[in-house]
């Protein structure tokens, strides 16, 4: 029994171990309570890129909603039943046939967590954070997307009090699709601009 426990302790990452120790200390000193920790976990777990996909799909089928999303991101999120309350602003930038946007936070890992939840691990990596500003086109190539030379690449370094999300372009050949089917095409990476949404005839993943 105790051997098993010891094994778990040694395989846990140093970061996880450190966080556990800090959490235990904060609880012990009464700075935080267990329910507060659980509330925070529930908050993050309730948010995911599916929220972003819903916002994007609605904007693709409804021009008024698109206008709202681009002018007041929090109001648009509230209109779809999300809870975007957060001290930081939420700004959505639009990809067009001539502009492709890419989001990064070089200083830390600023991300619209109130809408999309936790950022992908690669978004927090030193490699992405340093390369996305210096060689955005090479980074996007590695994600399998190459913007044409005549498309402006706009990198947004989210350094302060604004959190950014990309409104990608609607893929061609999707005229017949409904809002829910469209949302299925919107990937997490496309909301950062590292890639673009799936094509409607994309291969069905695994096992089918």
């Amino acid at each position, binding site marked *: 029994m105790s051997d098993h426990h010891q094994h778990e302790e040694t395989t846990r990452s140093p970061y996880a171990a450190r966080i556990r120790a800090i959490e235990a200390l904060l609880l012990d000193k009464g700075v935080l309570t267990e329910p507060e920790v659980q509330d925070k976990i529930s908050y993050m777990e309730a948010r995911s890129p599916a929220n972003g996909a819903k916002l994007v799909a609605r904007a693709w089928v409804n021009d008024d909603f698109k206008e709202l999303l681009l002018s007041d991101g929090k109001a648009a999120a509230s209109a779809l039943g999300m809870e975007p309350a957060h001290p930081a602003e939420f700004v959505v930038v639009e990809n067009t046939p001539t502009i492709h946007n890419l989001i990064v936070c070089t200083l830390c890992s600023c991300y619209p967590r109130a809408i999309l939840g936790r950022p992908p691990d690669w978004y927090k990596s030193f490699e992405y954070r340093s390369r996305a500003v*210096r060689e955005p*086109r090479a980074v996007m190539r590695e994600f399998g997307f190459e913007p044409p*030379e*005549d498309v402006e*690449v*706009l990198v*947004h370094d989210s350094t*302060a009090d604004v959190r950014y999300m990309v409104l990608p372009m609607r893929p061609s050949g999707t005229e017949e699709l409904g809002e829910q089917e469209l949302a299925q095409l919107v990937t997490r990476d496309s909301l950062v601009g590292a890639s673009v949404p799936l094509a409607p005839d994309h291969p069905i993943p695994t096992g089918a």
Partner: protein
Amino acid sequence: MTYRPGDRVRVLPSKKPGHVRTPGYLKGKSGWIEAVIGPFPNPEDLSYGFSGLPERTLYKVGFKQAELWEFYEGPDEDYLYADVYEHWLEPGTGGKA
């Protein structure tokens, strides 16, 4: 609010230590005010437990990628936007044109 959209600005080459929100690669670089985002408590004070007041105006500042990086791969029309607080800016000569 000192600057308006289109104004040329330069990011101060300050070596201010501690918690700053201006990335090193932009220090001393020239660009332009793309948009005025609005006033916010100064995060450089907030992070040390101060009030952050008076609020500072935050700007979206545009830069030409070709002017930021010596061997930038991409057309001249690739840009970078960063959100920079007023106290990190001075009048400059950079710009889109």
